[in-house]
């Protein structure tokens, strides 16, 4: 494919690298996993590794460099031997994360985003790490840091400065809790491994599979990732396709404010895997992947354990529970990219590529992983599939609404007395949920994360349901005195950082919106800028390639339309808004293009 001269062997001059690469199959799908390990071992991806991986896959150096440049947690320049990412999520900010980041940088003598001269440490801001209920939070070399305080930051700085190995740090620094404040049918019904599968293979798979598809259809289960597509419809479409099939589990829980899959992955992995296996037996898939977001890498050893044990138990492998059908699952880790939660970007990432969403149609159920028909469902969907297999459709439908049957997990964070996980029946009002979590004097609730909707108090009677306020699980509460314009500005920057860059409206529109939000925040916006927000948003929502660009304008648009008071006293007239001095401030700097 390329005429660039390259070595024909993957042997490099570095034995550690050779050993690391030798542990991966030489296929494009292994590229991202290998790159992650190279990054962890060498704190960057050195040119020799890029060369070796390009040779593996028969692609150019630029293709591998393109993958490295796409993912946040990969870098072609060395990061610190202690690489610290502090979550810059909105709830982390409400809890003072910015001051903590500055404190850590100052204590360690490091500039944010740059590696210290001796290579010891680098400190970075990163998108929400899925620990909003125990923030301010972060990561150090793939381990989670929770409940950070100024005192703890001082301790961490000392541990890093004296190069104490992470294994010797106080374990409670890394202890992730999963506070659950409300149980309904899902969280009160653990299933013994194999119990759900048993219902599928007795008396035989051919009968059990069709019976379960009927049950699934009757349950009305809709995908818990947020879009709410009927699970049965998705499976049935895939089942009717010819050829080998694939099951992917979306554990890329990237929506800021969402952390409910963290609990399921840590404590309900058996049920999740059982649901995936049921899907495989129903549609006829032999191959499965769990796509785990990089921020949850700390859960990977547990998931590998569960998969290994289930293989021993005959619940995965060449003959699942004596059914005659084969199915096995590979754990695939992301490397820092919100867009990979989009199912076609997720599939691209599993194939070892940049996470660019595909053009649809064809949908994954027709052409997914390596062009094979693929069912992709959320972690929670698979858990509930397993429970439906055991308890039946009427049991499932006993809670929830007609159009949104069952229950769902909410990740509740922000200004509440009891942040954590809540299992609620669909159809509860925002007010009811607020009462549950002990929120008072609430100014706004973000339902469904920044890609969802910001709900004002006048609408707190609205219901959490696909037919009213859908949510992929995030429920973030803001007290009345919070600056919602700043919240919207931060989320707008989040989307600009996470846009994959493929399509014009999202790639450019996100940047336009950040400039406008910054201008409002600085008190330099005008009515013309408000109109411009709506113009750009309208274009993005209609013409963007995927859901990211279509929903990226939500935070800013919702604040301007639902909370117009945020602009009172902050707008100038159109004539006054143009600041010649500010507009020409950088002209003395004479920015020149770099010549190679």
């Amino acid at each position, binding site marked *: *494919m*390329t*005429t*660039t001269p390259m070595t024909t062997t993957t042997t490099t001059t570095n034995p550690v690298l050779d050993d690391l690469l030798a542990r991966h199959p030489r296929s494009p799908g292994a590229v991202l996993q290998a790159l992650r390990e190279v990054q962890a071992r060498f704190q960057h991806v050195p*040119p020799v590794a890029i*060369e070796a991986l390009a040779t593996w896959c028969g*692609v*150019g*150096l*630029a*293709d591998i*460099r*393109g993958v490295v*440049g*796409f993912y946040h947690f990969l870098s072609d320049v060395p990061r610190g031997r202690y690489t610290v990412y502090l979550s810059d999520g909105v709830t982390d900010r409400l809890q003072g994360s910015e001051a903590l980041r500055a404190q850590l940088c100052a204590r360690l003598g490091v500039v944010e985003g740059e590696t210290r001269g001796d290579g010891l440490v680098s400190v970075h801001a990163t998108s929400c790490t899925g620990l909003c209920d125990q923030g301010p939070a972060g990561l150090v070399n793939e381990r989670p840091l929770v409940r950070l305080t100024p005192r703890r930051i001082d301790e961490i700085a000392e541990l890093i400065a004296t190069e104490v190995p992470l294994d010797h740090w106080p374990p409670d620094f890394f202890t992730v809790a999963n506070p659950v404040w409300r149980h309904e049918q899902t969280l009160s019904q653990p299933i013994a491994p194999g119990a759900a599968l048993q219902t599928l293979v007795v008396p035989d798979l051919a009968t059990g599979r069709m019976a379960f598809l009927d049950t699934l259809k009757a349950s009305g289960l809709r995908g818990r990732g947020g879009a709410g597509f009927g699970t049965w419809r998705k499976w049935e479409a895939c089942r009717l396709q010819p050829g080998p099939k694939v099951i992917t589990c979306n554990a890329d829980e990237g929506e800021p404010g969402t952390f409910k899959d963290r609990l399921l992955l840590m404590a309900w992995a058996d049920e999740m895997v059982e649901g995936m296996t049921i899907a495989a037996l129903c549609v006829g898939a032999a191959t499965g992947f769990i796509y785990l977001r990089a921020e949850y890498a700390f859960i990977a050893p547990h998931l590998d354990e569960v998969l290994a044990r289930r293989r021993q138990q005959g619940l995965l492998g060449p003959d699942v529970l004596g059914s005659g059908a084969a199915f096995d699952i590979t754990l695939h880790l992301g490397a820092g*990219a919100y867009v990979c939660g989009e199912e076609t970007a997720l599939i691209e990432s599993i194939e070892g590529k*940049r996470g660019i969403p595909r*053009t649809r*149609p064809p949908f994954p159920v027709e052409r997914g992983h390596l062009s094979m028909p693929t069912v992709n469902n959320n972690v929670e969907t698979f858990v509930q599939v397993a429970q439906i297999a055991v308890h039946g459709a009427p049991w499932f439908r006993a809670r929830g609404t007609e159009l949104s049957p069952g229950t769902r997990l909410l990740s509740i964070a922000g200004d509440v007395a009891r942040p954590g996980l809540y299992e609620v029946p669909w159809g509860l009002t925002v007010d009811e949920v607020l009462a549950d979590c002990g929120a008072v004097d609430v100014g706004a609730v973000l339902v469904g994360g920044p890609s969802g909707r910001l709900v004002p108090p006048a609408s707190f009677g609205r219901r959490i349901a696909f037919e009213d306020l859908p949510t992929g699980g995030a429920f973030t509460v803001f007290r009345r005195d919070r600056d919602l314009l700043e919240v919207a500005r931060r989320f707008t920057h989040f989307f*600009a*950082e*996470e*846009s*994959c*860059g*493929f*399509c*014009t*409206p999202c*790639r*450019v*529109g*996100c*940047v*336009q919106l950040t*400039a*406008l939000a910054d201008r409002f925040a600085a008190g330099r916006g005008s009515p013309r800028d408000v109109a411009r927000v709506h*113009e*750009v948003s309208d*274009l993005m929502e*209609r*013409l*963007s*390639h995927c859901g990211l660009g279509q929903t990226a304008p939500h935070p800013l648009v919702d604040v301007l339309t639902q909370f117009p008071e945020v602009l009172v006293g902050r707008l100038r007239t159109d004539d006054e808004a143009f600041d010649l001095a500010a507009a020409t401030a950088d002209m003395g700097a004479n*920015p*020149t*293009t*770099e*010549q*190679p």
Partner: protein
Amino acid sequence: MSRTDDSRPTFVLDGETVPFSPGQTVMQAAQDAGRYIPHLCHHRDFAPRGSCKVCTVLVGGRAMTSCTLAASAGLDVTSASEALTTDRRHLVQMLFVEGNHHCPFCEKSGDCHLQAVATHVGMQDTHFEHAFPTRPVDASHPDVWLDRSRCILCELCVRASHDVDGKSVFAIGGRGAHTTLLVNSPSGLLKDSAIARDDRAISVCPTGALLPKGGAYLVAIGARRYDVADIATKPEDT
């Protein structure tokens, strides 16, 4: 492909019937029928990409990129409308402000698809906030020049270098606003790549991002292809 084959199925584009062959997209069928739908990342010689969104049309009120939309019998497609022209103008303006484009003295002026489509959709100003990005120039090669300031990330060079030239000189790197064109060579520079001045990857570039060195002004600006005719009437090599 015969345009008089009455047995082919048809769809409707702006009220007129367009025949298509199985497997064709709306864009391909429209091009075969001599109908112009504004586009930038699409080229008739290459597989569709669907990223610039300029070729967006309406089907049943829904916006779809015509370059990736499979033609099907009876489809009712709207391309010529004031609203779509406004959308296309905004998209082209977005492409202008995210790069650094200097049409009046650009070597490609008058032959540039970006400029020609901008004229076609009635662009009079850049409308949006300029990003003024600092993007590296690659002047290292004796015969070929890469100015990323003028790159609109259409990936036509990526496709052409791979599919036609058989060299895979280009790839896409970075992401979001920092998405960039990468050169496939150990140094990342054109001089160490397999590029040659006659490569299709160079000639297919719709803007002045990739240019052969020398000879840029043999035809004066003002007398070039799109200086004298609207791009809709000169659809060759688009």
